[in-house]
């Protein structure tokens, strides 16, 4: 049974389209009517062709019989050529004739035709099909009473003709019927195709309208222009968009509220710790604890900010707005400046290789700053010894490439794609990593249509992150 399944499935799938459903319901009945009518016409054609042949046979038989004379058991005949002329045609049908007396004696004609064995009333005729010399023939048996004979002698005249012309005639009748049907079907299909296009045009236009909408657009669709059949669909879509909008709004509000509360709480703890650290009379152990709390606090704040960043990026994807261009070189310089103290603490030298001042990127400055902070910050955080972090920004016509390269431990090739996942950490033991930095990088890149790739620096050392921004237009 297994090989049948795909066929069944395909048929099922094809009928999912409205067009094919409609077509199926128009075409299948048309074909059925066609088939029935064909069967009926075949019978009709056969009947007509048979009737014609029978008429001719009858004519021939009557003509031959009329030339028969009889007197006292002796028969005389001169067969008229016109009788055979009647049956002549272009198809070289064979014609046989034979005249028998009622008791089976051959009076004239061809002995190949056996005497008629059935019952037959006088002055009547019967038709039957038989075979002669391996070919089907239609035969007439015609009982004839010779009018000139005083005893009322009678004979049975048989005339037989092969079916070549009969068949040809029947087929011609049939094929003309078929031709008529085909014309009709063609016309039906033609107008059906036009009707489909015309009928489904609003649907196609509707789907084009939907496709042309901005991703994330929750604007209402106009119900007035659409055909009445589409109205429920549009209504449902609008309803769905409205509910989605509501959900998004409450999600946004939730994120904003969470951000507010968390930051306020951390601000309180931060102030408290700062106050304690600055107060005199704290012993070294307490000082150490306070410093540690402050450090943890800083880390938590960073993670919270990163999570909020991710949340806001999720939002951005849903409602991307066209943005102005931001010069990137200034952002690079300012981020490096900001991270210089962190680099100093870890004995890491920051710098730029080349900085194309003309590169602008169609993205909000906030996102670009976040992108760079994560890239350079990540490079610094994951270097466990003194080293270098280099940033370069070059433009090559169609795209600008930002590269952040370090000479740290790098990331094994197999793990390079995984670092873009949220909370994935290459080195679980590094207390400074949150596992969110590269996820943010990836999502920012996705949201501004930039591409980010990881590789290793020269001599297979360190990590090299390349971000390519589309340029121009």
């Amino acid at each position, binding site marked *: 049974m297994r090989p049948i399944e795909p066929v069944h499935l395909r048929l099922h799938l094809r009928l999912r389209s409205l067009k094919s459903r409609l077509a199926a319901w128009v075409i299948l009945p048309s074909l059925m009517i066609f088939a029935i009518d064909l069967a009926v016409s075949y019978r009709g054609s056969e009947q007509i062709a048979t009737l014609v042949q029978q008429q001719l046979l009858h004519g021939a038989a009557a003509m031959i019989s009329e030339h028969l004379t009889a007197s006292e058991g002796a028969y005389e005949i001169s067969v008229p050529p016109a009788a055979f002329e009647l049956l002549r045609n272009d198809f070289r049908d064979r014609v046989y004739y034979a005249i028998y007396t009622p008791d089976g004696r051959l009076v004239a004609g061809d002995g190949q035709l056996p005497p008629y064995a059935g019952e037959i009333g006088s002055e009547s005729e019967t038709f039957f099909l038989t075979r002669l010399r391996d070919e089907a023939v239609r035969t007439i048996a015609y009982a004839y009473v010779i009018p000139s004979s005083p005893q009322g002698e009678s004979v049975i005249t048989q005339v037989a003709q092969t079916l070549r012309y009969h068949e040809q005639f029947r087929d011609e009748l049939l094929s003309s019927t078929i031709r008529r049907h085909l014309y009709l079907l063609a016309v039906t299909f033609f107008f059906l195709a036009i009707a489909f296009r015309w009928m489904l045009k609003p649907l196609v236009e509707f789907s084009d309208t939907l496709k042309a909408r901005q991703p994330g657009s929750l604007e209402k669709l106009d119900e007035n222009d659409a055909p009445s059949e589409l109205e429920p669909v549009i209504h449902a879509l609008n309803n769905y968009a409205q509910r989605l909008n509501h959900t998004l709004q409450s999600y946004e509000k939730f994120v*904003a509220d969470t*951000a*507010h509360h968390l*930051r*306020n709480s*951390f*601000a*309180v*703890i*931060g*102030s*408290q710790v*700062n*106050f304690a650290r*600055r*107060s005199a009379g704290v012993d070294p152990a307490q000082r150490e604890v306070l*410093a540690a709390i402050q450090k943890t*606090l800083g880390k938590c*704040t960073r993670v919270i900010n990163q999570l*909020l960043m991710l949340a806001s990026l999720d939002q951005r994807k849903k409602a991307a707005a066209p943005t102005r261009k931001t010069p990137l070189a200034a952002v690079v*310089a300012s981020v*490096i*400046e900001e991270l*210089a*103290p962190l*680099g*100093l*603490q870890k004995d890491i*030298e*920051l*710098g*730029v*290789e*080349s*900085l194309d001042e003309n590169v602008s990127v169609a993205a*909000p*400055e*906030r996102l670009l700053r976040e992108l760079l902070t994560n890239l350079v910050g990540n490079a610094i955080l994951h270097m466990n010894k003194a080293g*270098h972090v*280099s940033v370069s920004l070059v433009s090559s016509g169609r795209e600008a490439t930002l590269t952040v390269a370090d000479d740290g431990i790098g990331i094994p090739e197999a793990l390079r794609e995984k670092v873009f996942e949220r909370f994935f950490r290459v080195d679980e033991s590094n207390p400074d990593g949150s596992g969110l930095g590269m996820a943010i990088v990836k999502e920012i890149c996705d949201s501004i249509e930039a591409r980010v790739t990881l590789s290793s620096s020269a001599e297979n050392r360190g990590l090299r992150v390349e971000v390519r921004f589309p340029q121009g237009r």
Partner: protein
Amino acid sequence: MKLLLVEDNRELSFWMTRLLEQSAYAVEQAFSGGDALQLLKTQSYDAVLLDLTLPDMKGQVVLKHMRDRHDEVPVLIVSAQDALQEIVGHLDLGADDYLVKPVNILELEARLRSLLRRATGKAHPLLSCGGLCYDTNSKIFSSAGKALPLTPREHAVLEALIRYPGKTVSKKDLAESLFTIEDCVSEKALEIYILRLRKKIENAGARIVTLRGLGYMLTAYAPD
């Protein structure tokens, strides 16, 4: 220096007040926009720290009221919202600076200082970075109360750096600061001055950071 802290979170307000008082600021607290506007009518302050999410009205509204009645006291917005558009909006409304919560107290104090400096219309005579101080009147660098012995060239370089602590100063700008002393300063020479300066300020709680390709930057540095 007298500050007005407008913050509806009483706990945060309490601790920020204590912190700022520790740094010798006189702080008054307002817990709502209405309170703040009332206080601003009768009292005069050197600066206002303004939260944006207040129970009775938005911080933006408070700010607008202030500016509408020509109250030009410097305003530093301290808020938990970080959208760039909002920052731009507030600066348009007349805020002087903006910090996102949770704020780093050192950052807050630095911003306050520069705000106050700008407001008084004259440069603060005493510049500092970490434990390194520079008196712009007497032109003397000092650390822990002791003057640092610097050559005129080192002095010129360090002065250029301490005017923008935490900001990159390009080699070109540094070379220009030496222009009055030398006609032409080679990069090599500049590197030597930086090297010497680094040694001299080693124990002053400040560092000169090289940002390769960008320039130099003076930053506070306290090894843990």
